[in-house]
């Protein structure tokens, strides 16, 4: 126990990974996704936007995932699309995490009118079918990637705010909170530095679930033609374009981007338990 905090944290992460093989697999998948997202264009064997004469070729040694109706290499497009899809989902989740945390802290700590107004406002967002709401927001604000991020953030914020509100509320009168006040902390500092960090473990589970939803949401919006426009490589568009060719037997156009989408959602959903164990101090020995 005399090791420095950073060392013991690394040891703790190692322990969590060893203890739970699923977490280990999930973290390797995540590392793979991040690798593709960062290095995307460098990894792709072909230019994802360059069309050629070899159209609608089935998967082969030259084109692992085949080619599409314009002769573009599907493998390169799937790899390059990772960055865009990850940017949208991480951006959206980061925004809703911050907004939800602030709203949840205010509602949970100060309560009263703040709580009533914030909670009812969030209920109003939740009362809409969320995907339709996102469509409406993108349609109203304009058809850009930024607006897809904002729309996804708006529909995810209530989930974060509710988790934080509940976690802050149960700790509002805890002994360590009173002790923090005795130590001269202002209310703002008490909430931000003492109560909120204790809400992180359940938030991490929420983050991982939300990441999956955000990826699906972004792909869903571009599937119906909102947000990202062709010819930009993006999993949702690729599935939408490929869907037209499934009937005629060219299954690879939709299958491979669909599989990557599934893999990403799968990774994020399984990430939750591992992340929670890592940020929860009680798991440390």
């Amino acid at each position, binding site marked *: *126990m*005399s090791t420095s*905090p950073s060392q013991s944290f690394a040891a703790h992460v190692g322990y969590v990974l060893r203890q739970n093989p699923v977490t280990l697999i999930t973290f390797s998948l995540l590392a793979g996704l991040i690798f593709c997202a960062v290095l995307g264009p460098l990894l792709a064997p072909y230019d994802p936007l360059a069309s050629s004469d070899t159209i609608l070729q089935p998967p082969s040694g030259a084109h692992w995932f085949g080619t599409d109706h314009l002769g573009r290499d599907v493998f390169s497009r799937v790899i390059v699309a990772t960055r865009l899809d990850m940017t949208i989902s991480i951006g959206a989740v980061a925004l809703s995490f911050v907004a939800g945390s602030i709203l949840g802290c205010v509602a949970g700590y100060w309560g009263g009118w703040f709580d009533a107004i914030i909670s009812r406002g969030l209920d109003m967002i939740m009362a809409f079918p969320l995907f339709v709401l996102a469509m409406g927001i993108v349609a109203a604000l304009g058809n850009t990637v930024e607006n897809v991020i904002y729309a996804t953030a708006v529909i995810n914020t209530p989930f974060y705010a509710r988790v934080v509100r509940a976690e802050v509320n149960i700790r509002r009168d*805890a*002994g*360590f909170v*009173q*002790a*923090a*006040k*005795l*130590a*001269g*902390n*202002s*209310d703002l*500092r008490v909430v931000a530095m*003492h109560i909120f*960090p*204790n809400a992180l473990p359940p938030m991490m589970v929420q983050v991982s679930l939300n990441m999956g939803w955000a990826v699906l949401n972004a792909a869903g919006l571009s599937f119906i033609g909102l947000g990202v426009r062709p010819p930009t490589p993006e999993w949702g568009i690729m599935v939408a374009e490929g869907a037209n060719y499934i009937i005629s037997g060219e299954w690879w156009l939709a299958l491979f981007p669909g599989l990557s989408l599934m893999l990403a959602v799968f990774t994020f959903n399984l990430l939750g338990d591992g992340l929670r164990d890592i940020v929860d*101090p*009680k798991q*440390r*020995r």
Partner: protein
Amino acid sequence: MLQIRDLRVQFETRNGPVDAVRGINLDLARGETLGIVGESGSGKSVTAFSVLRILDEGGKIIAGDLTYGGINLTAADENALNDIRGREISMVFQNPRAALNPIRKIGQQIEDVLRQHSLATRQDARRKAITALEEVQIKDAAARYHAYPFELSGGMCQRIVIALALACQPQLLIADEPTTGLDVTTQKTVMDLIQNLAKDRGMSVLLITHDLGLAGQYCNRLLVMKDGEVVESGPPAKLTKEATHAYTKKLVAATPHKGKALHNLILGGAAVPVPDQGEVLLSVRNVTKTYAGKSGPVEALRGISFNVRKGGCLGLVGESGSGKSTLSSIIARLQDATTGEIEFEGRNLNDTPAARFASDPRRSEIQMVFQDATESLNPRHTAAQSIMEPMRHLTKTIPRDRSARVHELAAQVGLPAALLSRLPHQLSGGQKARVGIARALAVNPKLLILDEPTAALDVSIQALVLNLLADLRHRLNLTYVFVSHDLAVVQMLCDTALVMRSGECVEYGPTDAVLSSPKSPYTQELIAAIPQPRP
């Protein structure tokens, strides 16, 4: 009737297997009350759970024989055990609220048990349930049948749990800390009830407790456990007078009772001098506090007045709901009083509202030690961070000086420096209490409010912490307001006592006078409830 031979229980943990019980032997005769006394981690509850084979996951009986009335419990299958559980051997748990189903009426819960063991039919279950309630002296049992657990007080809930446990006329009752968390007066009624019921039915009782005084009063024979082993056994009078084992001696010494001096709690402890008293430091005049409740205003405090001199120690005594915690948090300026004045060094504290007191220069002069050491430490902060926290905001020191001061404080409260980098859940109860005290002392307060700082601690740790507090008071010339439900503890530490009930002061005066010649009937009742070993 119950025989345990060489019982060994092992738990699988992250750091390898841990022996919780290491070969204990126990015999319990029909109609006998046997007390197992030990501190947390001694394996006393694990022993009891082994008898009913209800160990947590990871716990395993690795050796030994458990025999009940000729039946080998270690070899019995789940069906046979289910017949024995409740019907032959029954259990009363520590937290009565957690042991009751919150969404079922208490009467129905008793019916469930009766019908589970085919002791009642649909037609007569209700009548039998009401009889069971009457037996545990629930007044107006027919009406209480329809009550939900949340509508009842802690003492009432424990009586319901006892009624549940006794509904099937068991031969053996295992009571695992049945009165921990209950008020002293309630503790007495619950224990008297168990004792009388056991006598009427010729039932054996296995009483598991950390309180040697309580066990001594109600048991025929005691077993003292430490680290999974029985260190000593015998009748209570013999154990308290002529204990042979060092641990038993320590435990006997650490158990507070009326008339004991503070330093006698630890073996070979030296008397701690009491600081001289100066002028009045804290003056509370006519403080009231009214909350807005659902059914009209609730008066938590109805006009409390007292003075504490510099270097003095006031004991605030009361049971749960008496308003003592409200009063202490008002003095600590965590909340405002509805009316009344609080003067500190002759200046009115009410000038600054509680919400803005954090930035008042007097913040560092009034500090507090909280009741639950675990809950009062931020689970994400190490011991050092927790102790440093007040210095970061209330003093203008540089980080290096603060770190030095943390080590100085740790030494002062007897916390090994190696433990400073640990998180709260890696510390024991006594260590957490020391962190809490060090944190309160960090900014050199003049007045320290101690809100039941030893309530959650084992008696031997309580003895050390109380002596530490007395020593610090003398060395640092501190003034204490000591909140407690335990008159025996207050008597040892405090020079003045104030007894509270329902937000009112029922008695106020020098501690010796309050204890030796109490004027109010309530104080007399409280004093009578302090466990006294049978002669």
